[in-house]
């Protein structure tokens, strides 16, 4: 490749950021929009071209690396700013840039009435830059740069509406919780450096089997620490609490960062380091279990939420759980597959929700919606498709990926995980349908002003919806099941996921069993949907009845298991108290004391030295001479 294709992909958004900063408001709304979307679209184009170039290569040398410059060289440790494009990162890059550009377009419409339009796109482009760096990095250090970058951007964007205290709080929460995870990531990276002396994927993966005893403590520790980073970024138990609050940010942000791209970074990272995880079966178990638990727990919480975006948020958490489930059972390909499809339909759902909110004038409560279908035909249609897709209705993208995950879980003998997945799937179907029904069907429960504010969104918002809807429908067909040697997607990822000699989990089960599983998952999905329709559309009394019957459970779910309160009590409060003590005693007394002490000492000293400052050059010269004399004498003593 003649021109530095890979470095240009993250480079373009960054350039857009720079331009945005330099030109400032001189750009105007239109200019900003063009700049932001243009840069991301261009990046998408470049990505497509790069991936084509990649696909042109024969299967087993499908990796394009591009060295930008040597970042640091410390002793025998060197870190380069260099980019790697292999099938895995190719998928991510396409998803990020593709969905990203769609969402950018959408945002131009959604944010059109916002005061700080420019700042929004500044952050958004910055995020694109960080995310692409993360995905394209060819070593953990650069990946960590992107990792932190996306964390920062998510903080900035969640707290975008700074005048809202809730938003600011949510931003801080997200950032801090992420930091905890990042700390794990860092420690993991340190372990890798210590063990393999490098952070380049290639070197690490090459060296890992020799550097670590398979299944040993060290590798398990490392893998778990990395996974801790993943749980932070991808909102898994125990660090999932920030994601629902993150819904305080603008909806495009929720769609881009907290559904499609950033939160999947964890999955990507785990899949990227599959070599390490495969060396540590225990860690894999942990991943699987945590994934399953998160999937189930989030799903249950999702059942009882009334804020449309929160429902989606918890569904995101649960879907991420599925992805980790896949990774945990060794089906990294399936995980990435689900990342992709999920990016499509979840982004679509969020954007749809955004369109609804937009249409109703910032109304987010499901209980004050309903009957929107005729008013918002496009939104309704696309949302419907997305809902079906996520529910796992056959022949839609969600179906294929989710089914593959469940199948992998079952095949690899993690029956508990599989069961959790099945149940979670049915719940997913239930609450998604509930959301759909409450929003679009049934009688209209709109408040007065939102009722007359009601209008279908502008084309700039509809177009991305349609595009994503198409993707959510066909996106899954790269992974049709029942193919010898795995489907297209698996084959595409094979060079990466089977690197390091170790072959990804290929537990074949009998066709019959496979069919049964398939029908079963379809069945539970159908059941969930039907039950939701019944209890919210056909006989709404049933929902209330249920709510009264299981009041305790309902309260538990509505209160999100009071995890936040728990953390608040266990971590936050004591921490605050300790910090207050430090502030009052350590900082105010000791540190300030030292500083002031230094100050007073200097004052005294200079008061003494002022005596020598006569202002006469001659005197100074004399002092200098005496100093020279003293030096002479010193040397004489030495000799």
């Amino acid at each position, binding site marked *: 490749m003649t021109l530095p294709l890979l470095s240009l992909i993250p480079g373009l958004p960054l350039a857009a950021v720079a331009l945005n900063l330099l030109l400032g408001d001189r750009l105007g709304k239109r200019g900003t929009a063009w700049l932001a979307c243009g840069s991301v679209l261009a990046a998408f184009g470049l990505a497509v071209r790069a991936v084509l170039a990649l696909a042109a290569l024969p299967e087993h040398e499908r990796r394009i690396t591009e060295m930008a410059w040597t970042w640091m060289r410390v002793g025998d440790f060197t870190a380069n700013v260099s980019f790697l494009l292999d099938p895995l990162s190719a998928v991510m890059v396409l998803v990020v840039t593709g969905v990203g550009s769609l969402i950018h377009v959408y945002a131009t419409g959604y944010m059109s009435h916002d005061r700080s339009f420019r700042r929004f796109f500044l952050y958004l482009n910055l995020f694109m830059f960080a995310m692409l760096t993360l995905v394209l990095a060819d070593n953990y250090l650069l990946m960590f740069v992107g990792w932190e970058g996306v964390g920062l951007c998510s903080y900035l964007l969640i707290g975008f509406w700074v005048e809202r205290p809730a938003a600011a709080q949510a931003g801080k929460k997200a950032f801090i919780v992420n930091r905890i995870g990042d700390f794990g990531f860092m420690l993991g990276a340190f372990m890798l450096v210590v063990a393999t002396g490098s952070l380049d994927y290639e070197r690490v993966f090459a060296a890992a089997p020799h550097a670590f005893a398979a299944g040993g403590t060290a590798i398990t520790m490392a893998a778990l620490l990395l996974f801790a980073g993943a749980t932070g970024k991808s909102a898994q138990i125990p660090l999932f609490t920030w994601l629902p609050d993150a819904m305080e940010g603008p909806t495009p942000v929720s769609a881009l960062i907290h559904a499609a791209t950033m939160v999947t970074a964890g999955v990507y990272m785990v899949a990227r380091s599959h070599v390490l995880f495969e060396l540590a079966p225990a860690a894999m178990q942990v991943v699987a279990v945590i994934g399953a638990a998160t999937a189930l727990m989030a799903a249950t919480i999702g059942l009882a939420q009334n804020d449309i975006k929160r429902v989606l948020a918890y569904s995101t958490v649960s879907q991420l759980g599925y992805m980790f489930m896949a990774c945990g059972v060794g089906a990294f390909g399936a995980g990435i597959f689900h990342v992709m499809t999920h990016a499509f339909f979840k982004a679509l759902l969020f954007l749809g929700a955004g369109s609804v909110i937009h249409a109703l004038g910032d109304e987010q409560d499901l209980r004050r919606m309903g009957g929107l279908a005729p008013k918002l035909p496009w939104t309704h249609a696309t949302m419907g498709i997305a809902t079906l897709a996520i529910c796992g209705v056959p022949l839609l993208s969600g179906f294929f990926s989710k089914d593959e995950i469940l199948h992998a879980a079952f095949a690899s003998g993690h029956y508990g995980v599989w069961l959790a997945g099945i149940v979670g799937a049915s719940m997913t179907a239930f609450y998604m349908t509930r959301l759909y029904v409450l929003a679009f069907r049934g009688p209209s429960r709109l408040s007065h002003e939102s009722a007359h504010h009601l209008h279908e969104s502008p084309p700039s918002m509809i177009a991305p919806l349609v595009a994503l809807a198409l993707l959510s429908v066909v996106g899954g067909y790269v992974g049709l099941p029942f193919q010898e040697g795995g489907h297209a997607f698996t084959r595409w990822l094979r060079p990466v996921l089977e690197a390091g000699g170790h072959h990804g989990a290929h537990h074949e089960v009998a066709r019959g069993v496979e069919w049964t599983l398939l029908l079963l998952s379809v069945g539970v999905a159908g059941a969930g949907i039907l039950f939701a329709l019944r209890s919210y559309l056909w006989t709404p009394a049933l929902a209330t009845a249920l709510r009264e019957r299981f009041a305790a459970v309902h309260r538990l779910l509505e209160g999100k298991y009071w995890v936040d309160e728990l953390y608040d009590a266990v971590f936050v409060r004591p921490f605050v108290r300790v910090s207050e003590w430090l502030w009052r005693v350590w900082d105010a007394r000791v540190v300030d004391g030292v500083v002031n002490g230094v100050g007073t000492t200097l004052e005294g000293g200079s008061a003494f030295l002022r005596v020598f400052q006569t202002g006469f050059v001659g005197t100074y010269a004399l002092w200098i001479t*005496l100093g*020279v004399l003293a030096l*002479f*004498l010193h*040397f*004489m003593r030495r*000799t």
Partner: protein
Amino acid sequence: MIPLFLGFAALLVATSLLVILHKNPVTSALFLVLAFCSLAGIYLLLHAEFLGMVQIVVYAGAIMVLFLFVIMYLNLQHDVETGVQIAVRRGIGWLAGAAVLLTGATLFGVPAGGGSGWALGPANAVDPAAGAGNVRAIGRELYSRYLFPFELTSVLLLVAMVGVIVIARGGARRGGARRGGPPPAAGPADPPEDR
């Protein structure tokens, strides 16, 4: 060669003493010129022809002329150096000087073979051409190994020139430039600018 050196050395010491002893700045300046010339002579004896010449061109020919120019420009007469305080300072000065010289002498007086840090290294015979100090060799060095410092000095000179012009001009604009100075005819030649 030795007698020549001794002569130059004597001249150098005598003239430099007169520089600091003589009350008339112009005379001091002239003696300084002589001192520089004798130093140039010593350089010649040490096979540093280039330096000897440059010594005369730069120090005698430029720097000292500038000194003279300034002295005349400010038209200074004999320094009046009377009064207790001044006498005291002079005494201290001489004492300090003597002390410096003494300590220095003791330092260098340490026997060379004594293994002390001050023993003078032996004359190591690298290629004699380098020692010959001819212009070509120096040029080679300057433009190869010392290229960067060389360029730096050019920058330094530029900066100095700018600074000088600024200082001189600033003073002239603040009026009173004529006070104590010679009649206007010497005005246009702002001495530092001509350096």
